[in-house]
C-alpha cells in the first residue's frame, strides 16, 4: 500500500487499535508550559497517579512571562504563582524545565526545534494549538487540551481517531517580498478557517521544498488557523542540516540510524489523500488581514471584499473598516514582531534588512520580541540589535508577549496593531485591540512608515 508521510508516522505509533476506529497513539515528546499544565498535574495528584515518562517531557515558561526585566521577580501575583507552580511540578516529577532566564528558555514552539528536540517521524503534543509548528520537520505534532495533557502524563499515550489526510500543493516561484507567512495567509484566505477540520495537512510542492526550516515552521504553525490539527512537510536535506549538531540531535552512529529512518518517511508516489488543493506561487502577493479571523486576508494592495453576512459585518464593525476599502495608508500606531509564527532569527534578519538605515516612525510603538533566549543571543551576535536600536526600536526579552497579551504587553483599546502573530481574534492582543496579521517584512515597513504601505511598489 502506498502511504503518506502522515500514515507512516501515525502507523508507527499505534499501540493498539480499538473497536470503533480509535487508536491508542504513543507520544514520543510532550512539551508543557505554565498555563495549560497545572490542572493536569492536579488531576494526577487527585487520582494518585505518577507521571509515567518524565524524561520524555520538556517544560518552558513562555505564555505568561514578562518581556522586560526578566531577572526581577514577576510582579503580577497570579502570573508568579503560575510560574512557581510549574517549577514545583517539574521538580517534583523530575521534568526538565527551561524556566524564565534559562539560556534555553523561550516560546515552546521555538525552543524545542532549535534544541533539536523536534525530529522527523516523531509524535509530539503540547497543550497549545500551535504545536502544529513542529510538523515542519515531518513530525506529527498537535495541540491538546489539559485533560489530554493529564492522559499523556499518566500513560504517554492518547486515545484518538486517525484524522483524514489533506494535501496542499504550491508550485512555482514566489515573487519578491512574498514570505512564508504570506503563503499560509493566502492559503487560508482561499480555503477558509474550517476547511481543515478533521484533517491533518501535508504541504507539498517546490515552494515548501525551497523554504528554510524557519519558513516551514511559520507555515505549519498556522495549520490550525484553517482548522487542521496539524501540518507536515516531508523531511529532506534542509531538515537534516538544521537538526545536525543541535543539543539533543542524535549523535554518532545513532545519527546514521535515524537518518535512514527519516529518509523513508516522505509520502510514496501515488499515495492517495482524502482532499487536495493546488495553488500557484505566482498568484501569491504580500498579504494582510482586515477582519477578526485569519481567513479574512487580502493582498496588501487589494480591497476588502463585499460580503453580506452578520459575522462579516460584525468583524468589519469591530475593525472599523468598510467593505471595498483599501488598507494602504492606514495609520498604524502599534507593530509587533514576535510569536511562535515569526520570532525566529530569519524573521529578525528580514526585519533588520528592511529597517537598516531607516528610522522608526514617531507615532509607532514597536515590540520586537525574540522567540527564545537563543534567538535573542543570535540577534545580538549578528549585529541586528544595533540596527534596531539605531532605528529607534527596542528589543524585548523572549516570550509569547503580545501574541495573546497575557502579560503586560497589551495593545490599547481601539488601536490597530500590525502583527506577525497568528490570530486576529477580537481582543486577542488586549481588550478592544484590532489586529492586522502580516509578515515580518510588512510589519517592519509599517513600523518605519507609521502606516500600511504597498510593499510591492517599494520592492520594485
Amino acid at each position, binding site marked *: 500500500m502506498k502511504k503518506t508521510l502522515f500514515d507512516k508516522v501515525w502507523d508507527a505509533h499505534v*499501540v493498539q487499535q480499538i473497536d470503533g476506529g480509535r487508536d491508542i497513539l504513543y507520544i514520543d515528546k510532550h512539551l508543557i508550559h505554565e498555563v*495549560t499544565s497545572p*490542572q493536569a498535574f492536579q488531576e494526577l495528584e487527585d487520582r494518585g497517579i505518577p507521571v509515567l515518562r518524565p524524561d520524555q517531557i520538556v517544560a518552558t515558561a513562555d505564555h505568561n512571562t514578562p518581556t522586560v526585566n526578566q531577572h526581577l521577580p514577576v510582579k503580577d501575583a497570579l502570573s508568579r504563582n503560575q510560574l512557581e507552580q510549574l517549577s514545583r511540578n517539574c521538580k517534583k516529577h523530575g521534568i526538565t524545565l527551561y524556566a524564565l532566564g534559562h539560556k534555553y528558555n523561550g516560546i515552546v514552539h521555538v525552543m524545542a526545534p532549535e534544541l533539536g528536540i523536534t525530529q522527523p517521524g516523531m509524535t509530539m503534543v503540547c497543550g497549545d494549538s500551535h504545536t502544529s509548528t513542529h510538523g515542519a520537520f515531518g513530525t506529527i505534532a498537535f495541540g491538546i*487540551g*489539559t485533560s489530554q495533557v493529564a492522559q499523556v502524563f499518566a500513560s504517554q499515550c*492518547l486515545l484518538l481517531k486517525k484524522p483524514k489526510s489533506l494535501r496542499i500543493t504550491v508550485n512555482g516561484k514566489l515573487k519578491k517580498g512574498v514570505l512564508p507567512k504570506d503563503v499560509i495567509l493566502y492559503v487560508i484566505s482561499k480555503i477558509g478557517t*474550517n476547511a481543515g477540520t478533521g484533517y491533518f495537512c501535508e504541504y507539498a510542492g517546490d515552494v515548501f521544498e525551497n523554504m528554510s526550516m524557519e519558513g516551514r515552521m511559520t507555515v505549519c504553525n498556522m495549520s490550525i488557523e484553517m482548522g487542521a490539527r496539524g501540518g507536515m512537510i516531508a523531511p529532506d536535506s534542509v531538515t537534516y542540516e538544521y537538526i545536525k549538531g543541535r543539543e539533543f540531535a542524535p549523535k554518532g552512529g545513532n545519527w546514521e540510524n535515524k537518518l535512514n529512518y527519516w529518509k523513508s518517511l516522505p509520502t510514496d508516489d501515488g499515495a492517495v489523500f482524502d482532499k487536495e488543493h493546488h495553488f500557484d506561487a505566482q498568484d501569491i502577493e504580500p498579504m494582510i488581514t482586515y477582519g*477578526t479571523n485569519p481567513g479574512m486576508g487580502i493582498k496588501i494592495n487589494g480591497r476588502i471584499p463585499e460580503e453580506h453576512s452578520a459575522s462579516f459585518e460584525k468583524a468589519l464593525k469591530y475593525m472599523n473598516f468598510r467593505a471595498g476599502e483599501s488598507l494602504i495608508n492606514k495609520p498604524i500606531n502599534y507593530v509587533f514582531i514576535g510569536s511562535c509564527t515569526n520570532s525566529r532569527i530569519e524573521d529578525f534578519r528580514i526585519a533588520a534588512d528592511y529597517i537598516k538605515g531607516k528610522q522608526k516612525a514617531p507615532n509607532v510603538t514597536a515590540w520586537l520580541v525574540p522567540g527564545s533566549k537563543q534567538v535573542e543571543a543570535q540577534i545580538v551576535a549578528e549585529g541586528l540589535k544595533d540596527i534596531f536600536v539605531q532605528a529607534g526600536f527596542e528589543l524585548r526579552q523572549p516570550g509569547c508577549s503580545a501574541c495573546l497579551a497575557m502579560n503586560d504587553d497589551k495593545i490599547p483599546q481601539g488601536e490597530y496593531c500590525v502583527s506577525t502573530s497568528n490570530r486576529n481574534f477580537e481582543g*486577542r492582543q488586549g481588550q478592544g485591540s484590532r489586529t492586522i496579521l502580516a509578515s515580518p517584512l510588512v510589519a517592519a515597513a509599517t513600523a518605519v512608515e507609521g502606516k500600511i504601505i504597498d510593499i510591492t511598489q517599494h520592492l520594485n
Partner: protein
Amino acid sequence: MEAFKQITSRAIPLPIENIDTDQIIPARFLKATDRKGFGDNLFRDWRYDKSGEPNDNFVLNNTEYAGEILIAGDNFGCGSSREHAAWALKGYGFKVIVSSFFADIFRGNALNNGILPVQVSGAFLKNLFNHIETDPETLISVDLESQTISISGTEVSEAFEIDPYKKMCLLNGYDDIDFLLSKRELIDTFEETHFQIS
C-alpha cells in the same frame, strides 16, 4: 466525570459564527492553577463593558433567556486549545452546546469535561434560533441514548452523531485516563521495540 444521559431545558441563543476560544474566555483570565471560577468570566468581553458593567445587549445579561443549553453559530470553539473554554462553559452551568459545526480541539475538550457538543444541520440550527426568538420559554430536549435533539411539544427534531466510545464514556462518566491505564502492559511492550526503530 459526571455522567450525562438526558436533559430538557430552555436555551440561550448566540447566533454568531466562528466564536473562538478567546471570546469564550479571554487569555488574561487563564492565570489560575485550578479549574474553578472560570464561569464568572465566560464571554467576559461581550458580557461586560470596559468598566465591568454588564452589557445589556448581550444575551447572557438578558433575563428573558435562561437554561443549560447554549445554541451557537457555525464553527464554535475555534482557536486555541485552552480547555479553560470548556471549564468556563461548564462553570457557568451549560451542559449542552448546539452548533452546526465545532472546532476539533474544542469538541474533544467539551467531551472530556462532560459537556455534550450537539452538531446539527444548518437548517435545524436556524429553526432552533427562530423558535427561541419567538418564544424564549421554548424547551429543548437532548437525549444522548437515542442521539436526538428536539423542541418539546413539537414534531421538530433531528438525530445527531457522536463517537460511540465517547458516548459510552459520557453515559457512564468514564474518562480516557481510566481506559489508558488499563493498557499499561501493552504500552510497556510497545516501548520495548519502538525506540529501536524510530
